[in-house]
């Protein structure tokens, strides 16, 4: 049996932004680590997009050797405290764990965060960089893919500058994922600081495609290669009547106001809408984050999703947490109109019931409206968490950079190579909205690609 982990009481945490999961104590962590069989052929590593040396760091943890465990971790990943918190381990490393066949899989994610948190508290530095090799690389975007690519290149001795459009580094880790899942001061900032200690420079308020172009970075500023990790892009809406009423937001806007701009704190000048009732449309992790944020700001929250609970794309843990906190789930429900009061504020959302038909292209059963099933959910605000479409800013200002039908940047999976020489890409800008760890995997692959490209040019 897996060692259980303590969490804030659901009713208490529904009213604060402190982290939900409290993490293992030393005894618990060592006990959980000791369950690891240290397999000769570790399947868990195969399940990890960045190939973390999982048995290695767990073996050191069994002896409570935090410096060694952290050294083994940080050799493979720049963001262990982040990954330990937000990776979907249940479908990756932990799903492959042999222990999980007859018993519970090892709590790899929780152990990873334990080691990273302990190391940070003890002031242990990440593995240091190689001597400078004199080559300059630019990274566009300081989200998970950009940070990973920058970190790996810095460790190899490259002089890396990250260009970030917003005023703070971190990308989705900063603007998107809320404090209660991923604390900013305690976890995100220190991991970014670790990167700076490796020599990575971060220039904020630079919008590549506007403040500077990829071509000018390469031609005028001496960057030999560029990695584009610019993220997901523009929020999608449903194009139903009433969608521009006051009180309809994209999840991106709502989360950015709360997380990046810290609207939940007293000191912030940024306003956020806190009505009595909020409806969130969508079923992914972003929908869960938006719903749980609205709840913490004091609203009663309903999640509306057009398929059934089984198809919810969000992590099981997030759905479970949301339910525990008192969020209502209206499954097999699809909005058709947003109702508006005489002051042009949202007053409700008209929906239809859905039933599942034949499987569609994604293999999931297609939801079909049930005729005559219209009903109204009364609400004061609607948050649309329907995914994103790529931001055309970089593609449209970079001649020779190929995009696909969905307007994502085309990049080879193995090393992130694009159609333009010296330009690599990865993360959501290539795949469309996906996960932190997949973006990190792409950043890591591109770092290898960039290293090979620059060394290839030299010889």
């Amino acid at each position, binding site marked *: 049996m897996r060692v259980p982990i303590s969490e804030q009481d659901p009713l208490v945490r529904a009213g604060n932004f402190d982290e939900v999961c409290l993490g293992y104590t030393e005894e618990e962590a060592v006990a959980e680590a000791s369950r690891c069989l240290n397999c000769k052929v570790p399947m868990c590593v195969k399940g990890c997009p960045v190939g973390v040396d999982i048995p290695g760091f767990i073996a050191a943890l069994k002896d409570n050797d935090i410096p060694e465990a952290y050294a083994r971790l940080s050799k493979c990943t720049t963001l262990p405290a982040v990954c330990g918190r937000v990776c979907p381990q249940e479908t990756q490393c932990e799903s492959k764990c042999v222990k999980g066949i007859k018993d519970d899989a090892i709590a790899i994610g929780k152990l990873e965060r334990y080691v990273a948190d302990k190391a940070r508290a003890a002031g242990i530095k990440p593995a240091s960089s190689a001597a400078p090799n004199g080559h300059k690389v630019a990274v566009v975007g300081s989200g998970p893919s950009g940070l990973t690519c920058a970190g790996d290149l810095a460790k190899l001795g490259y002089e890396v500058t990250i260009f970030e459009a917003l005023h703070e580094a971190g990308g989705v880790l900063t603007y998107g994922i809320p404090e209660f899942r991923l604390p900013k001061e305690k976890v995100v900032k220190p991991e970014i600081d670790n990167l700076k200690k490796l020599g990575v420079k971060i220039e904020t*308020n630079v919008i590549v495609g506007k403040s*500077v172009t990829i071509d000018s970075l390469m031609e005028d500023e001496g960057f030999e290669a560029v990695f584009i990790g610019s993220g997901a892009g523009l929020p999608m809406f449903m194009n139903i009547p009433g969608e*521009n009423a006051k009180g309809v937001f994209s999840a*991106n806007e709502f989360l950015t106001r709360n997380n990046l701009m810290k609207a939940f704190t007293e000191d912030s000048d940024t306003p956020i809408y806190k009505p009595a009732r909020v409806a969130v449309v969508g079923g992914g992790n972003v929908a869960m984050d938006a719903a749980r944020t609205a709840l913490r700001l004091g609203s009663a929250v309903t999640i509306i999703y057009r398929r059934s609970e089984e198809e919810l794309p969000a992590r099981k843990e997030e759905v479970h947490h949301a339910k525990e906190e008192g969020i209502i789930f209206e499954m097999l429900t699809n909005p058709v109109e947003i109702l508006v009061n005489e002051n042009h504020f949202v007053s409700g959302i008209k929906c239809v019931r859905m039933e599942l038909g034949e499987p569609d292209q994604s293999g999931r059963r297609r939801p079909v409206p049930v005729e005559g099933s219209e009903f109204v959910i009364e609400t004061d605000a609607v948050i649309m968490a329907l995914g994103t479409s790529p931001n055309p800013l970089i593609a449209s200002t970079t001649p020779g950079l190929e995009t696909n039908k969905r307007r994502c940047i085309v990049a080879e999976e193995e090393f992130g190579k694009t159609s333009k020489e010296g330009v690599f890409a990865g993360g959501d800008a290539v795949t469309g909205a996906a996960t932190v760890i997949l973006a990190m995997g792409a950043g890591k692959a591109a770092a290898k690609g960039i290293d090979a490209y620059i060394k290839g040019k030299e010889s």
Partner: protein
Amino acid sequence: MYLIKRKSILSDTIFLMEVVAPRVAKNCQPGQFVIIRVDENGERIPLTICDYDREEGIITIVTQTMGATTSKMMQLKEGEYLHDFAGPLGRPSDLITDDFEEVRKKKILFVAGGLGTAPVYPQVKWLHEHGIAADVIIGAKTKDLIIYENEMRAVAGNVYVTTDDGSYGRKGLVTQVISDLVENEGKKYDLCVSIGPMIMMKFCTLTTKKYGIPTIVSMNPIMVDGTGMCGACRLTVGDEVKFACIDGPEFDGFKVNFDEAMERMSLYRTEEGRALLRFREGATHHGGCGNCDGGDK
């Protein structure tokens, strides 16, 4: 951090800042905007670029104290810094990107309202530098709020000043001046560019539509990131939803749904008022009125 190299007070509430931002100055064009933050707790607010000096790396912005952020900004002095300054954002004005030969054939009228006079200036100046003299109507509530008049006269063809109360120039709204020029003074225009408060732009387009003068407006809705990520700035233009930050800020004024845009602007009115009170009254604001959550209630 971005140095305020020069600050000048244009009226009681309107002020100008020259800010050192070399990357913005190098790449900006008339019509584009920046997003600024005053301090580390500051809101991100969009401001249209009013002038630029590529060699010195300086951007000029003009703003008016309206809420907490702009009031804080007003208190900053020369030699102090803005915390953040990002740009250039949005598309350059069509005048700059359209076929120049086509632009040159046009007789252009700018209609500037209040603070909107400042972002009209770089467009008129750009045209002047390219040998085109555009006419400009500058309107404001009262004499004190007329800005950029001399600068404008130096680069424009005819400049017509009007005030609502008649304290300076003509008396009446900008729409009246448009009508006077077209109906009584024999002027013909092929294009109008209107920048100012939404209500003014709305009535400006209603007037120019009457005379069949295609009209471009510069929209200034609520924004957060300014790069397309949040969708707060969405507008209905024709039968499409557009994001002002990446599809604009300039749009075909005949197609913009101004009523919806003005409603959307008022979303945070209560919260903004509270923030301004907190800022103005500081520790003396105790929220005792029961109407707000300020102070130590």
